[in-house]
């Protein structure tokens, strides 16, 4: 099966990684570069204990854990399927009581959806999933980017790296964050799932600062991607975005996490 897909106005490449699911790279829309690479570096899981008595509640006693989504956990092949108005990739990963289906869906109207559907009971009910998506957009070139968030009723330019949670405020299309290219004026709009409790880390791109095959940066330090956040300027630079969802398990599972994204302004 070819790893180059040309359909619905999109051309992109994909490969199965060792730990970050299906990576999509060098993605173009209508002949213009949109994405250098995007992946799902990890889904961490942490556990809570539930007690009615606050004084007896031990809180989170154990640390988080995760399992690589990739060649060692995939069940069956990566699937490529056309649907009305687009094309999608999907793959299922299983590790004991955890099961995930990663999706990349590309629509001819410029939307695309990097999602993960979470199944499986876990080791008990009181647990929360934290899927981490990473996107390195190169909209019409690597630099000349800006990152913006919608707050106080308008789009606000962000000057420095940071962590930007969804505050409940969005534009009239539901978009909360966007990456803008100065040169073309084109933008990638990001609309979170309403129940993702999502946040975005915006980080200046550095060569090789790729997912380090683990969320764990070291004892006593912030995990990735928070460990990448410093004080570097974003305005006019190459920006990397991490979209992180926080999904508590409940009886209504499976649940599909991840943002809607849309390319706009590419003439």
């Amino acid at each position: 099966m070819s790893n180059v897909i040309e359909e619905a106005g999109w051309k992109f490449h994909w490969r199965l990684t060792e730990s970050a699911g299906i990576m999509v790279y060098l993605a173009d829309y209508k002949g213009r570069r949109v994405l250098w690479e995007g992946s799902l570096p990890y889904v961490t899981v942490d556990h809570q204990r539930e007690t009615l008595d606050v004084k007896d509640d031990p809180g989170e006693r154990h640390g988080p854990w995760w399992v690589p989504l990739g060649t060692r956990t995939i069940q069956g092949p990566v699937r490529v399927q056309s649907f009305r108005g687009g094309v999608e990739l999907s793959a299922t990963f299983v590790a004991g009581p955890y099961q995930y289906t990663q999706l990349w869906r590309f629509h001819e109207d410029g939307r695309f959806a990097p999602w993960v559907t979470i199944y499986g009971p876990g080791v008990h009910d009181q647990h929360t999933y934290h899927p981490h998506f990473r996107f390195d957009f190169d909209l019409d070139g690597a630099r000349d980017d800006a990152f913006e968030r919608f707050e106080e009723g308008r789009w606000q330019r962000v000057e420095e790296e940071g962590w930007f949670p969804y505050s409940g405020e969005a534009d009239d299309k539901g978009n909360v964050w966007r990456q803008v290219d100065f040169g073309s004026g084109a933008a990638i709009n990001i609309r979170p799932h309403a129940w993702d409790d999502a946040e975005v880390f915006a980080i200046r791109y550095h060569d090789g600062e790729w997912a380090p095959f683990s969320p764990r940066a070291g004892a006593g330090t912030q995990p990735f991607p928070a460990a990448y956040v410093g004080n570097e300027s974003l305005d006019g630079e190459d920006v990397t975005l991490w979209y992180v969802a926080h999904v508590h398990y409940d009886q209504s599972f499976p649940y599909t996490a991840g943002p809607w994204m849309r390319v706009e302004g590419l003439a």
Partner: protein
Amino acid sequence: MKKKAKAKAKPAPAAKTAKKPSAKREPNVAKADPALFDPLTPGEVADALRTLAEDKRLATMAKVGRYRVIAAEPLVVKPPHELAGHRLARIVAYDYAADHTVDACVDLDESVVVHLELNKSQPMLSRDEEAMAIDIALSDPRVSEKLHMGEAPQATMHYWGRTPGDLSYARRSAAVVFGRTDGHASIVAVVDLLDLAVTQVVPAEQW
């Protein structure tokens, strides 16, 4: 895991008017060679590992030989970086003797190490380490005596402790989940991979 946002924000013009003269137009990333992203061939992996093992900075590690290769994947850097267009391998290894991570980049076009970093981060477990954690857990009587008929290892989770009082907070560890094949988990055994010992056995419902 959340950290306080420290970024500043200022009102932005609409996207369509967000134009600013480009101070430095770098080479076009749209011309990147897709083949650079291809998985490494077995020969490329061997080349990268040989090159790394022969690097003098890693002589002790190579001589002692107590390290595990965690990952060998292609790395592609963007122009204008001097290595843009080169076939690069990112190699991550864990050195048990020194208790640290080796994060390296090997230029396969030149067979040289172009980046080397030793740090205390904890990369994922290799498949061998996952299997070893299962073997260690299975051989511990505190685990075997708690297993019921039909229960077996379900998965090796990549785990780290939450507090400094937990051995797995700073040490390379795994958590082996045991249970039935229908997915029901029964116990979790935490394994210290430095001492090759089970440090905790916890009923799954109390995890």
